[in-house]
């Protein structure tokens, strides 16, 4: 087990920056997930930790030792590649045992350790097979075994589940989580899949264009996104954004003069343009356009996903999605949407989050109900 310290690390490809001054500390034994769209520099960062990519500026330390110039094999990291990179000419046993062979571990001990890892991953019967004779999930397990057999201080995962079908992906996700619980090896996991990120991470890092947008627990990042990018990137259907303007008393006024949250005051100059963000799951439909504190909603399409309903429409010309528990009665006729003030996210023109000045007055909720509805954590 080991900790990682990343200090103002830069990576340039020619003149194109891929990673721009990044600071990050990974605690011993934690499971850190780096989430971001493709091209955000997350894989580059992982490969710099691994030693497969030079560091243009800054330094990376593992257990306090700067490893900028240390060979990949001597950093105490093991990596699981996106395409698994299993040596095609070696059997499963040889693949898993290669690191030990290279390290000069005697044959008997090697066989013993390979056997143990294989048993742990349920690969015992496949040791004599070649990678081409394995299914996707089995290859994935061999790749994990190859990383585990060295008993490294750090596991690095480069989108390891993206080549699997949906069902297998969920299964392997659980297996990775279980393995981490058993082994407690520090892990860095790169993905563009928000479900993987939310479910696996102790600490979630959202990256965009070579910089970190936000670091926190998955719940923090989901519930208090620091920027419009993070708010938009996490959650499915994505967060709804409604343009608004601050009035003289600091309240947000939506298009059409609606002011659904009169008690929510922002310390912003009058006429500041902001965007109000509302998670689809935080919206509740109410019958009647003119219902008090409701925003008029023009419904368009209703999707039934089985587990929940997605109701798509517009509010003042902006597309808005509402996620509802399955079997919610859909009001006929004119509809308004309501959201508690605590569910309101506000973002400035440059994408930063704006906080209301005082704690918003809690919305009247019946006691016993969780402050966040389970349906608000919907992704798929």
């Amino acid at each position, binding site marked *: 087990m080991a900790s990682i310290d990343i200090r103002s690390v830069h990576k340039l490809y020619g003149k194109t920056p891929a990673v721009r001054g990044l600071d990050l500390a990974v605690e011993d034994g934690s499971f850190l997930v780096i989430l971001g769209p493709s091209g955000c520099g997350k894989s580059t960062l992982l490969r710099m930790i*691994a030693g497969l990519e030079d560091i243009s500026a800054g330094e990376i330390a593992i257990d306090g030792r700067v490893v900028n110039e240390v060979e990949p094999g001597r950093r105490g990291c*093991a990596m699981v590649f996106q395409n698994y*990179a299993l040596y095609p000419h070696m059997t499963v046993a040889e693949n898993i045992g290669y690191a030990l062979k*290279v390290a000069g571990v005697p044959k008997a001990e090697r066989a013993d350790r390979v056997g143990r890892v294989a048993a742990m991953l349920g690969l015992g019967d496949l040791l004599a097979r070649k990678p081409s004779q394995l299914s996707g999930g089995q290859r994935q397990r061999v790749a994990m075994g190859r990383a585990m057999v*060295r008993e490294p201080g750090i596991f690095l995962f480069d989108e390891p589940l993206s080549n699997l079908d949906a069902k297998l992906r969920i299964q392997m996700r659980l297996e990775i989580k279980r393995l981490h619980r058993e082994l407690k090896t520090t892990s860095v996991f790169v993905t563009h899949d928000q479900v993987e990120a939310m479910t696996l991470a102790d600490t979630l890092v959202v990256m965009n264009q070579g910089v970190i947008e936000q670091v926190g627990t998955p719940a923090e990042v989901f519930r208090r996104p620091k920027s419009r990018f993070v708010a938009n990137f996490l959650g499915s259907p994505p967060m709804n954004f409604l343009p608004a303007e601050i009035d003289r008393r600091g309240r947000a006024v939506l298009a059409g003069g609606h002011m659904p949250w009169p008690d929510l005051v922002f310390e912003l100059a009058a006429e500041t343009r902001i965007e109000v963000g509302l998670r689809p799951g935080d919206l509740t439909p109410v019958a009647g356009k003119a219902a008090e504190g409701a925003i008029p909603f023009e419904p368009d399409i209703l999707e039934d996903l089985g587990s929940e309903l997605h109701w798509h429409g517009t509010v003042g010309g902006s597309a808005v999605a509402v996620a509802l528990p399955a079997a919610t009665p859909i009001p006929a006729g004119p509809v308004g949407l309501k959201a508690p003030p605590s569910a309101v996210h506000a973002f400035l023109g440059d994408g930063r989050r704006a906080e209301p000045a005082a704690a918003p007055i809690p919305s009247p909720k019946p006691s016993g109900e969780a402050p966040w509805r389970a349906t608000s954590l919907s992704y798929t």
Partner: protein
Amino acid sequence: MTDATITGDRALPGRLPRLRLSAAEPWLYLAPAIAVVAIWTYVPLLQAFELSFYQWNMLPRSTPRFVGLDNYRNLLSLPDMRQAVVNTVLYTIGLLPLSVGIPLAVALLTGGLSGPLRNLYRALIFVPMIVAPIVAAILWRWLLNEDHGLVNAWLSGIGLGKVGFLSDPDVALWTLVWITGWKLIGFSTLLFTAADSAISPSYVEAARMDGASPWQIVRDIRLPLLSPTILLITMMTILFGAQWSFVYINALTGGGPLRSTTNVYHVMWEYGFKTMAAGWSTAAGMLVFAVFGLIAIGCLAAMRRFAVYDE
């Protein structure tokens, strides 16, 4: 033909009716290839096989005389032929380091090169290949000339005696091996470089993560993944190496001195076109064909057995 299919039953006068044409169509497409293979390969092969049982001096007026297996019997007991077979083996063995060893090493060592340096080296290594064989032969004859050649001038310059590159029976064969191989290095290097760059970089990265040294990566990852190319070029050298040296034997030594540079192909050619013994030449050709056919089967089996393919 497209017209014929489109117009269908109302075929224009002078065109093939649709039905008959469509039945013959695949054969028409295949015809040129079949004709070429038949005319240039199988018919001559069969004719040569027939001719190998006759004695004939290739003069149009003379009639071939049937001699049964005499040609084969004579050939197999002839010291000439034995010498040629030994030399053929020497040519093949001598060529392997030049067609496989050096190009493989060059490709592995230069795999990491990039930019203009790579292009320069590729150009340099590739030049011998585009020089016409006969031009190369003449250039080497000048360079290796015993009295006025550059190479011997350099050798005397550094205090070594003159070497009869083409006149010393102990050296001449190896000189021809070198010239044949020199022409091949570029081509082989090109094939190895292409195969090496087709190896997925993630294997090398995985091996680096596993702690393998550069040499261990070559030994355990790159060489096994290059095995199809290594086996292919080895097979080509074994099957064709002696043929490739024919031009240089013919242009530089004519098989001498003291028959030290002749090989089975040169002997075959000599019998046929110098002594006009068509029967001997074709019998030698048949023997060579049979032996190399067996070797080819063996090589293919070896390839199937040892080559590693990355799916």
